[in-house]
């Protein structure tokens, strides 16, 4: 068994209105100095030893992310 983390982020050229809204709210809450916020998704997968890196890449690219608008990274993490 292993834990796999997949992070999915909007591509840099894709407008991220949710991140902008968060960035816009911070000064109103008294937090200054945050110049940009990008909002994405974080997936944690528990996988058994039969799942190889190639399969994980297919899961990320073919389902968890939409490559038209999102970039993704896959990493195995220590339990």
């Amino acid at each position, binding site marked *: 068994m292993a834990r796999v983390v997949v992070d999915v982020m*909007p591509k840099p*050229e894709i407008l991220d*209105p949710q991140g902008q809204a968060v960035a816009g709210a911070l000064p109103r809450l008294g937090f200054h100095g945050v110049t940009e916020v990008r909002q994405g998704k974080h997936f944690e997968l528990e996988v058994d030893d039969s799942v190889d890196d190639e399969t994980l890449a297919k899961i990320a690219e073919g389902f968890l992310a939409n490559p*038209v608008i999102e970039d993704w990274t896959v990493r195995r993490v220590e339990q």
Partner: protein
Amino acid sequence: MSPRIGVITFPGTLDDVDAARAVSYSDAEPVSLWHADADLKGVDAVIVPGGFSYGDYLRCGAIARFAPVMGSVVEAARGGLPVLGICNGFQILCEAGLLPGALVRNEKLHFVCRDQWLRVENNTTAWSTRYDAGAEVLIPLKSGEGGYVADQATLDALEGEGRVVFRYVGGNPNGSRNDIAGICSADGRVVGLMPHPEHAIDALTGPSDDGLGVFYSALDALKPLATAG
């Protein structure tokens, strides 16, 4: 015999009943199709209606794309079956790869619900022949993730090939690139749009009956098939 047009229902679909009603108004026969059933029941065209399939979990349309019925729709569309995706249906067709690009959160974050003017940019697709080129129509728009995006090369190709079918006029409601409201496949048989023509088929219940032309157009697209078959 009148053409039979399938209307798919997923868990979370909202506008299948209105879409079926619009099909009836255009003198075609609506046929209910179920997400879990790969059988298209021999229909002559398919409408993927609006709503929130699978609760919009993961991304709008991302789960619906893998429904058994969509496998059949993708295969049939590649063979020339006319397919119309409205709102969530447009999102599903993009996720399924039948149309390029993607729909993202509206620029100002607000869910937009209003009667929206559109210009018909291409009146040669399977779903737009009943309109005059350049005609302006009033159709309800109701979506939170209706911003059309694609990379510049794709946008240039869509514009160059005349594959923008409907364009927002009188202000861009959601940040769509190039004011795009609807596009079509290279063969013009698959069309997706964010506004809801099925809500504009009768002045009693909608802002106009401008949407009816979409459904009548499909009948024209099917005539050559009927005489050939």
